[in-house]
């Protein structure tokens, strides 16, 4: 048919490109191959220069390892460091390293690499959390298996940070092309990647520990939450790492082929209130807004009731967790009273949110509930990360916002007056400093006070703690219910 020629010709012209499109990341399914679905694809493999959780989610603990890691209960346990001691003045840490560890490029792992990796943070990393490493004064290589780190002042947060990407161990010969070729000591190496589709991890033959049960893991990136669910149903993947369409979970529960594992995360879905901007600088107004929101109803409608109600910036896996979720109960009458006491009428606030499903859902509920107490809001979805990061986070151009704060122990952000919260409390700053430099017991006591102060001051409203919901085929086991770090830890997974 002549009519078809232009189209077929155009298609044929580039059939070569189509044929070769994506010939690299091909994997045939087998009993020792696992396919895991994620929503956010890593832009590259260098988490020292690129923010966001997508990269450590794939690489931390799987490809890169640190001296220590977090176990499923959130406790610090040995990894590359077999043991460690802390000096009485809490400034010197002596790490005894594991023997026989090699990087995937064959180089042996020694205390020299510890020194190299820790000092590199200050010099070469560009992301904001690198400042946690500033407290390191110097690192001594006492012996090939003994590294000594001396801090300029005691810091509990420092050891904890070693369980995150900050503590990842690099080899000097392996940092030439971090964006494309990550070289770590972990059980997997990156074998291939296909943009817009997947990353393939293969077992590291030189790994020091137990070989992982799945020698090949395909990380499949599917942005759309429903498409992700559908992929599991139609056998495209074996595991959904995190459900983002929770209303669909009952379908999986009703099906014998699948299991649903639910636990907690570190992600607080927070209604941020710009403390620096009137009228939100008035604590009564903030408390009023907090009282106007029925968080249980919000969780039920926006996130199908899955998640935990929290009263401050602390998840249950932190040692100083207390359930403060009922301190400001849902009380619209009280909210109205507070508002008139503060002399505020006809309030009209801009709710500038990232264009992500949980934020869009929660915002609609917040808007409706605030309207019930006479506060009008305008929802403005912003592109995330580009626009939200610039306008809300950097320029502080917002009244209200809703965002997940995913980093562990990010309660410390309330100690920074320049952070977008706009919250400036000398008492909190003092307590945070004491908690960091004190003993572990002091830390727990002080942090509890910080959490309570934030709650009393209504520095923000913590809508709920984002749940960790993993859905997988029944034949896959070894999942940790709680997500305690940025990593999606593949090392414990095995067939049942």
């Amino acid at each position, binding site marked *: *048919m*002549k*009519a*078809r*020629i*232009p*189209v*077929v*010709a*155009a*298609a044929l012209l*580039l*059939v070569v*490109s*189509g*044929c*070769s*499109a*994506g*010939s690299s990341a*091909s994997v045939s399914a087998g009993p020792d191959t696992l396919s895991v679905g994620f929503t956010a694809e890593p*832009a*590259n493999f260098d988490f020292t*220069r*690129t*923010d*966001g959780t997508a990269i450590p989610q794939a690489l931390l603990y799987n490809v890169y390892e640190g001296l220590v890691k977090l176990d499923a209960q959130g406790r610090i346990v040995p990894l590359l460091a077999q043991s460690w001691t802390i000096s009485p003045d809490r400034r010197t840490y002596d790490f005894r390293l594991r023997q026989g560890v090699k990087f995937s490029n064959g180089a042996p792992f020694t205390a020299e690499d510890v020194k190299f990796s820790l000092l590199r943070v200050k010099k070469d990393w*560009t*992301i*904001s959390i690198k*400042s946690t490493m500033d407290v390191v004064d110097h690192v001594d290589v006492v012996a090939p298996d003994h590294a000594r780190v001396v801090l300029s002042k005691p810091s509990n947060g420092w050891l904890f940070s070693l369980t995150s990407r900050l503590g990842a161990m690099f080899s000097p010969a392996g940092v030439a092309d971090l*964006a494309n070729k990550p070289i770590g000591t972990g059980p997997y190496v990156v074998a291939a990647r*296909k*943009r*817009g*589709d997947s990353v393939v991890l293969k077992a590291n033959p030189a790994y020091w520990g137990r070989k992982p049960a799945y020698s090949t893991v395909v990380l*499949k990136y*599917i*942005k*759309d939450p429903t*498409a992700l669910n*559908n*992929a599991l*149903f*139609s*056998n*495209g993947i074996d595991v959904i790492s995190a459900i983002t369409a929770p209303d669909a979970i009952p379908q999986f529960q009703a099906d014998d082929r699948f299991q649903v594992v639910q636990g907690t995360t570190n992600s607080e879905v927070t209604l941020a209130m710009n403390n620096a901007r009137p009228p939100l600088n008035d604590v009564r107004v903030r408390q009023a807004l907090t009282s106007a929101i029925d968080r249980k109803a919000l969780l039920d409608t926006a996130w199908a009731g899955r998640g935990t109600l929290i009263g401050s910036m602390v998840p249950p896996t932190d040692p100083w967790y207390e359930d403060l979720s009922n301190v400001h109960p849902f009380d619209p009458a009280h909210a109205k009273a507070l508002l008139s006491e503060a002399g505020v009428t006809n309030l009209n606030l801009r709710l500038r949110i990232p*264009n992500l499903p949980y934020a869009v859902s929660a915002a609609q509920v917040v808007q409706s509930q605030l309207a019930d107490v006479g506060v009008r809001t305008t929802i403005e979805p912003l*592109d*995330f*990360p*580009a*626009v939200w*990061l*610039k306008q809300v*986070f*950097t320029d502080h151009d917002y009244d209200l916002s809703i965002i997940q704060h995913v980093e562990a122990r990010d309660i410390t952000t309330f100690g920074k007056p320049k952070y977008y919260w706009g919250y400036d409390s000398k008492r909190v700053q003092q307590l945070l400093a004491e908690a960091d430099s004190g003993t572990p017991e002091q830390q727990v006591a002080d942090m509890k006070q910080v959490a309570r102060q934030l709650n009393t001051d209504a520095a923000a409203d913590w809508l709920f703690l984002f749940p960790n919901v993993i859905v997988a085929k029944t034949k896959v086991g070894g999942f940790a219910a709680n997500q305690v770090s940025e990593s999606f830890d593949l090392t414990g997974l095995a067939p049942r």
Partner: protein
Amino acid sequence: MTARVLRRVAIFVVSVLVASIVVFLFMAVLPGDPAQVALGVNATPELLAKTRTEFGIDRPLVTQYFDWIGGVLHGDFGRSYVTREAIGSQLLDRLGVTLWLVGAGMLVALVIAVPAGTFAAVKHRKASGASVSGLSQIGVAIPAFLAGIILVQIFAVQLRWLPSGGWTPPDQDFGEFVRGLILPALSLGLVQGAVLTRYVRSAVLDTLGQDYLRTARSKGLRPGQALVRHGLRNASVPVVTVLGLQLATLLIGAVVVERVFVLPGLGSMLLDAVGSRDLLTVQGIVLVLVVGVLLVNFVVDVLYTVLDPRLRGS
């Protein structure tokens, strides 16, 4: 006729150039600082400035434009601000996927439209013809993504006959490639088929009443033969024009279908790039899409001339 074709070529080239300037200027207006996005939140002003120089976005616009367009003509679309990879090769990969999708969709549409439209035209006074025509009306009204959502639910999730999404290149596993393409092609093709059916029907109806057909019949050809030999060739003229117009709509449908079926095509690449303010990538994709449409229209124009002898003389 050659003069006419040459004129068309000249117009095409000029259009492409103008389009590239429009696209470039548009991107220059977009708010959001690529350096800020790439470096994240706490980047120092010095680092930001250094990165801006590295990206080349602190140079005057004219320099940037010529640099860019010069590179494009060599196939170099620059490096993405976000992934730091060459845009060109990724563009090609993704374009391939979108083309397969659009091509398959077009195929499905034609396979539906040509017989259905002809049938509806030939039997237009009977109930069967009218009902086909009616069905095509309804088909036009359904958005491609709705068709996609429904098809996924039935065939992928419930029946599990076909995958719900994803892409396998044809040289890797041809079977999987075809299986993965069926539902997306159907989503695009069913709706486009409905649209085309109506055009085919009206084009065939037109030619049915034409003189040369009656001449053919009077020469002794049976209705079927007359239709195929003379009618369809002439009916294909407006259909070819329409195909050109429809390609633009097909591309739109492809963007949405790519989202529903998770196909790594140009559409999803565009949406991702816009979301992450990856301006250089957006520029490249938009240029390719626009030039693509211009190219198809150009080819259709030329073919139009070839197909319709009445136009050759002018």
